């Protein structure tokens, strides 16, 4: 119920903005960056590298070369209609969204491919949704954003990795937030580390390199390519029901749901039996 109220509240605040933008070309919506900009970033202004840009952005230059190729027009069209209102027509960023210069293909592919961008509603943290664009469109968008320059991590190619290394690395680097079970967990201020139950290997690898939202990034110096492959492989193993060898996973939320089941299923069944047995049979 609280969720519903909050949604209504958000909607109420966002609807006027949407109305203002209806006249604008295409389904442009007001968009806030998924991550809340760091205090430092807000003081230095929105056009500088915000929280959503990546560590690879250290080499950021102001390259503005126009792309060439058959898809050039398509990517630009999509960008202008769905992204430019927040990120600026040349990806320079605005009050509403961070700069995409130096964001890198991995970041664009991750945000758009997981449906987190374009934002539907202004929210603290963009939730995962079905992607709005087709894979081809996403590729075109990625190329277009890449043309803003600044480098940034490329879309990783994921090979099959070592399962044991993947498990160890996952536990060391990911489990604290995403839970050792991959079920995700709450952070603070309403942010969450999302569940990994729908993450594809490429998306896992992209998230590791990019560090979307509040997540720290893990560049090559911290996790090498084989290690990323291993983690991505283990997440796939974790997603599957194969690990729930013991039966119903109960959401993999640990002792809380186990305790609930113990009381609401186990003890209720036992007490009902005691009631049946302990009452006098009227014969």
């Amino acid at each position, binding site marked *: 119920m609280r969720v519903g109220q909050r949604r209504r509240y958000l909607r109420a605040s966002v609807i006027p903005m949407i109305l203002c933008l209806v006249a604008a070309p295409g389904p442009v919506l007001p968009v806030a960056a998924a991550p809340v900009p760091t205090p430092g970033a807000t003081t230095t202004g929105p056009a500088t590298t915000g929280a959503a840009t990546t560590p690879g952005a250290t080499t950021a230059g102001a390259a503005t070369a126009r792309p060439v190729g058959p898809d050039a027009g398509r990517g630009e069209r999509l960008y202008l209609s769905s992204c430019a209102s927040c990120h600026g027509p040349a990806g320079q960023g605005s009050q509403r969204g961070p700069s995409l210069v130096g964001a890198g293909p991995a970041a664009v592919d991750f945000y758009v491919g997981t449906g987190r961008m374009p934002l539907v509603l202004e929210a603290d943290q963009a939730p995962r949704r079905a992607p709005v664009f087709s894979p081809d469109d996403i590729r075109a968008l990625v190329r277009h954003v890449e043309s803003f320059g600044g480098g940034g991590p490329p879309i990783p190619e994921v090979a099959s990795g070592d399962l044991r290394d993947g498990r160890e690395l996952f536990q060391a680097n990911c489990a604290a937030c995403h839970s050792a079970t991959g079920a995700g967990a709450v952070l603070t201020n309403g942010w969450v580390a999302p569940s990994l139950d729908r993450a594809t290997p490429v998306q896992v690898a992209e998230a590791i390199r990019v560090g979307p939202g509040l997540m720290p990034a893990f560049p090559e110096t911290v996790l090498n390519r084989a290690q990323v492959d291993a983690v991505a492989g283990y997440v796939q193993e974790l997603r599957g029901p194969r690990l729930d060898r013991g039966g*119903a996973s109960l959401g993999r939320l640990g002792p809380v749901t186990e305790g609930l089941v113990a009381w609401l299923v186990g003890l209720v069944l036992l007490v009902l039996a005691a009631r049946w047995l302990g009452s006098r049979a009227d014969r």
Partner: protein
Amino acid sequence: MITRWLVRAVLRSVDGRLRVAPLLRRGLAKVFPDHWAFMLGEIALYSFVTLVLTGVYLTLFFEASTVETTYTGSYAPLDGARTSAAYASTVRLSFDVRAGLLMRQTHHWAALLFVAAIVLHLLRIFFTGAFRRPRGINWVIGVTMLALALFNGFTGYSIPDDLLSGIGLRILYSVAQSIPVVGEWLVFLAFGGEFPSDDAVPRMFVTHVLLVPAALAVLIAAHLGILVRQKHSQFPGPGRTENNVVGSRFWPAYTIRTLALFAWVFAVLFGLGGLAQINPIWIYGPYDPAQATSPAQPDWYIIWGDGALRLFPGVDFDIAGHLVPAPFWPGIVLGGLTFAGLYLWPLLERLAGADRRAHELLDRPREHPVRVGVGVAVLTFFAVLLVAGSDDVIAKLLKVPVLDVLSVLRVVALAAPVPAGLCGYLAARALRANGGRGIGELTRRDLRAAPQQRTGPGERDASAAPAGPLDGADGRVELWRDPDGTWRWRYRSGEVTLTANLAYLSREEAERSATTAYRRAPVVAVEPPVPAVATAARRTARRAAPVGGWLALLAIGTWRRRRR
């Protein structure tokens, strides 16, 4: 006929050595009250039996050591990984020992239900005043068993040396370390040094499989021995007095009934153990002090303590240059107060003016509104703590900020218990004033009218235990001699007919028993009544031919061994 002959043969053979017949006859005739609330303790008992049986199986495969070893087995993500022997053997037990996972999960579910049943049993005892004289001693034993159950649950959760339980153990260590003056020494002695120590797992293992279960077994024996010696208490009702117990006899009715519950406890536990995954330590991974998983909770019966740790604000005290860290208050003081309160409640009630007489008739909860009020308030407080211990899971499911949940719960934990207790008090008072009605039928007028109809403690005692009907004065005792020469009696009053549980060898014996049970009922000698119950029982015996067959086999076996 054959059954009878067989039973007599076996009995003679045993009786000739131990003279058990008189004792056995009395034991078989022990009367159990027919009320489901009296079976909650049995649920705990049978859970304990499950724990022992599955636990013994687990010890055959578990290796209580933190020595580093290599897991090799069918769980691919860990195959070849270096982990502690305790962790590796638990994974092996879950994946490579056939039926091992079933036993492990059943053991864990049984632990959760063991404590849950104890808590429910304790609530029944509390709200019905069954802890009053002469049962204070069993109350103390019961509370001790609860404490031991919590402790043993925690050590059992900790010994697999997985990431989740390691974090829990880390918290326990920190809480114990927070005790002023002795805390550091206490944890260093218990763990053999700084956390995480190699001694912790073997030491916890010994307490988990030997010391605490042995203590529990002794206490259970004492609990039951005292129960048999003191006989059951019972709710007031027709024919029930402070000097008797009304219900079913142990054999055959109650035996079959309690065996049914026993089997059902096994059914539920094995069902849960097979179908619902619990504590998947292979997913959590081995413990490493630098690694974490989130959400991190202990099992439900410890969560309230974790909840208190979450709610209590970070207030450190400085005493002459020494530190009393914040976890001391919610961890040690609250836990200590909880159990001190439980232990001392019978005493507190007596100090507050309750009588010191022995009580065999229970209170209905409503007859003691203050007790209901205190109970509801305390339960509310602990329920809030339980919720607080799950705050991150709740925040995740409700999609609200966790610190907001925490702030709300801080307020609720302080604000809710007193009004809740007051509601309990008022409801109980109104119910008491309105006699037989249930809680659903209460109206606002009842609540307002209750104080006028209030009866003082002295008056209440007088009205709750009116001398007349409860001593059997409104009925009569009928005494007769059965054709086999034994004496029996029964109590009749209106619709109620209650037969004595035993056949007596002499008239005096029968009369003494009858006048003990019903002090004021006149005793009259009558002709033996038609044994309606006996025919039904005999017919039953014929239906139970398979059991007879089994007994025959058993007897033949004994016979042969004796001949040899």
